């Protein structure tokens, strides 16, 4: 039959197109990795493969010193501060939305959180400049631009996303399990702490690590409030610079063709390596229902 032949032809070509799209995306991912790897390798080679580049804190482009250890440490500190602040709030919102709220409150909360999760990070940075930085200056003294300010801004930025993800996880605990737990004489608190949160742990871990990845990768919201200090560590209330903010700053200072431009690739590679570890960790043992 003509028609069947035509259908078969369409079927084959559509399958090929889908495969081509997948190949395109796979190549794109590979290309990104390669470009960064080549740039980073060249830079490390030009520095004679010295480990001090990663561990040291001497960053002085004019004098030819490119050690990025401080930015790695600041990235970790800012991320940790943000997660420590967002975790209790996000969990609270999730517990309320999944177990306490009435049906309409739950719907309203979900819609609100989705809208808030889509608020651009630059708006959070703007709020940080308007509220957090002056606030910290008044309370803690110093410039206000600080690791703590960056952490606080990130925490507010991540709260809706993490809250929503955690809410979905808690919502997936089957009603049967709640009833079985309560029927054994658990109070609502015991049911929450000893059953619901415990069985949700793998999912909550994934939600948490997703938020960590976003915190590590955020640029402008952090750049606006962190102060951009590249010389030495100044404490939580002092300014600093993370890997992402430093890439942004130095794209202007180290233009292409500059011998040290590759240090930007190196910073990107380190960020991606960190994110890869997070992804692997998030996916491990996540097979449970």
């Amino acid at each position: 039959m003509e028609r069947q032949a035509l259908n078969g032809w369409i079927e084959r070509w559509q399958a090929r197109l889908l495969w081509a799209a997948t190949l395109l995306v796979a190549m794109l991912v590979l290309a990104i990795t390669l470009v960064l790897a080549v740039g980073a390798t060249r830079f490390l080679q030009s520095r004679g493969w010295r480990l001090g580049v990663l561990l040291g804190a001497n960053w002085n482009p004019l004098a030819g010193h490119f050690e990025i250890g401080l930015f790695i440490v600041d990235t970790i500190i800012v991320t940790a501060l943000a997660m420590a602040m967002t975790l209790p709030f996000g969990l609270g919102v999730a517990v309320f939305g999944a177990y306490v709220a009435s049906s309409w409150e739950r719907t309203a909360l979900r819609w609100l959180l989705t809208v808030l999760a889509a608020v651009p990070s630059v708006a959070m940075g703007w709020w940080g400049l308007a509220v957090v930085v002056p606030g910290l200056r008044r309370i803690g003294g110093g410039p206000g631009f600080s690791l703590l300010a960056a952490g606080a801004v990130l925490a507010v930025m991540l709260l809706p996303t993490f809250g929503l993800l955690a809410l979905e996880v808690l919502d997936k605990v089957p009603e049967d399990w709640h009833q079985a737990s309560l029927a054994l004489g658990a109070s609502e608190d015991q049911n929450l702490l000893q059953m619901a949160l415990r069985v949700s742990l793998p999912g909550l871990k994934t939600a948490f690590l997703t938020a960590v990845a976003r915190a590590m990768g955020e640029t402008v919201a952090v750049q606006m409030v962190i102060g951009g200090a590249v010389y030495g560590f100044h404490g939580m209330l002092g300014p600093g610079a993370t890997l992402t903010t430093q890439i942004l700053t130095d794209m202007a200072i180290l233009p292409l063709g500059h011998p040290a431009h590759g240090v930007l690739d190196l910073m990107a590679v380190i960020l991606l390596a960190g994110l890869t570890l997070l992804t692997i960790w998030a996916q491990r043992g996540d097979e449970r229902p």
Partner: protein
Amino acid sequence: MKRGRRWYAVSAGITVVALAIVLWVLLLLAKDGLAGWHWSRLTRFPRELRSGGGIAPELVNTVSMVMLAECFSAPVGMAVAVWLTDYAPPAAWVGWLKRVLIGFQSIPAIVVGLIVYQTLVDGLGWPLSVGSGTIALAVLNLPAVAVLGATVLSEVPGRLREGSLALGATRIQTVWRLMLPAALPALIDQLGYSWARLAGETAALIFTAGINVGPRWGWFQPGETLAVHFWYVRTEGAMPDWRMVAAATGLVLVTITAGAVLGAKLWAARILAKRGVGVSERG
């Protein structure tokens, strides 16, 4: 307070505080943005050193760049999603590809900006422009569409799929007539969110689309967006009314992102309602 429900009360308190803090951001932005508001801002060009500048080109750039980026990345990403859910062989490397895509979903935007800067702007000699920025947005969006699309498609019940195949439909017919329509509301929901995410993107665009606007719109014209303008004016703006310009830009930007998310959600809810599924059941 009922006994044994202490943590429920605590969670309610936390929710109120959390929402208050996040809404503080929006309310402050609305207050400052409306303080010096004039509708002419939407139609004028920005001014570098004088008051009263507008954001018309930024508005056009934002909408056009996000639309173009979606036009490229949404179909290609969905094609990957369909391939991954329905065509992929059960091979180990497919699992790896999925994992890599999930990882790239959280690639920092600044890294995408860096790559596009190095390849297009340096490699091919493109200017900081609408074109470079659009490509950066598309690259940023691709893994997200593929991963989220695959998640949505895999939630279409398997029995529907098997039923369709058992009735003699080909695989691609099943995809077009069954899978995509069944997943449509969830896909629209995701599209709205990805639209908002791209419109609010800053880091990937500063060194690809640039921080200037051209006299007219064009692929190789400077392509500053609302988000970049918001960032630039707030951190480096030299016009006397930079406070008002920044807040007004931010307010317009947040309105656009919230509008995209809410619009998509309402659209999806309407489709579900027509199919006889309550809004609350799909959240």
